[in-house]
């Protein structure tokens, strides 16, 4: 029973990973890529780690898997935020089909804008 739940989680997780990486290739500019890739790969990896818990039962492997889930959930969105901010500050503009850019408007001409 628990093995079939683990198999299901594994399939769903890897499907999300593949979707995230396709998004990384298809979407037009860095911010959109960051969105697709961060969301999908974080949840996909967390589901693979959760399937480890279901496959092996309670024990040393699953306790480390839980720690790893916690760490990935904490650090992955933080890294995405750091890259997005750094990219905007290093002068990467949004895709030309974009709708509005309040961040660039608010920092127009100020010292803050590198």
């Amino acid at each position, binding site marked *: 029973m628990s093995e079939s739940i683990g198999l299901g989680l594994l399939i769903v997780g890897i499907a999300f990973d593949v979707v995230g990486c396709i998004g990384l290739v298809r979407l037009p500019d860095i911010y959109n890529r960051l969105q697709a890739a961060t969301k999908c790969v974080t949840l996909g990896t967390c589901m693979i780690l959760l*399937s480890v818990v279901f496959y092996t039962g309670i024990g040393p*492997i699953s306790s*480390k898997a839980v720690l*790893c889930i916690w760490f990935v959930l904490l*650090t992955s969105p933080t*890294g*995405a935020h750091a*890259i997005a901010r750094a990219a905007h500050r290093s002068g990467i503009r949004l895709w030309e089909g974009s709708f509005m850019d309040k961040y660039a408007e608010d920092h127009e001409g100020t010292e803050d804008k590198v």
Partner: protein
Amino acid sequence: MSVFIALLIFCTFLCLYRVGKGPTAPDRTVAIDILGTLVVGFAAIFSIITKKDIYMNIGISWALLSFIGTLALAKYLEGRGFDE
């Protein structure tokens, strides 16, 4: 299980494509960040196959090191020194 590993290797090649092509430096940074998270998935699948807990040690330390790499690259892209 080999099917899942093949799919993850496919994901890795998509990331490597973005690392090679990416028009700007932040694109490459994003791809490397995602590559780090995918390696954690690899470690988890190997620990399912072999039922050994050492692969989870690799997963945790890889997540940590990829976080450091992301922060350092982000700081470099902002154009600041590493120690300020």
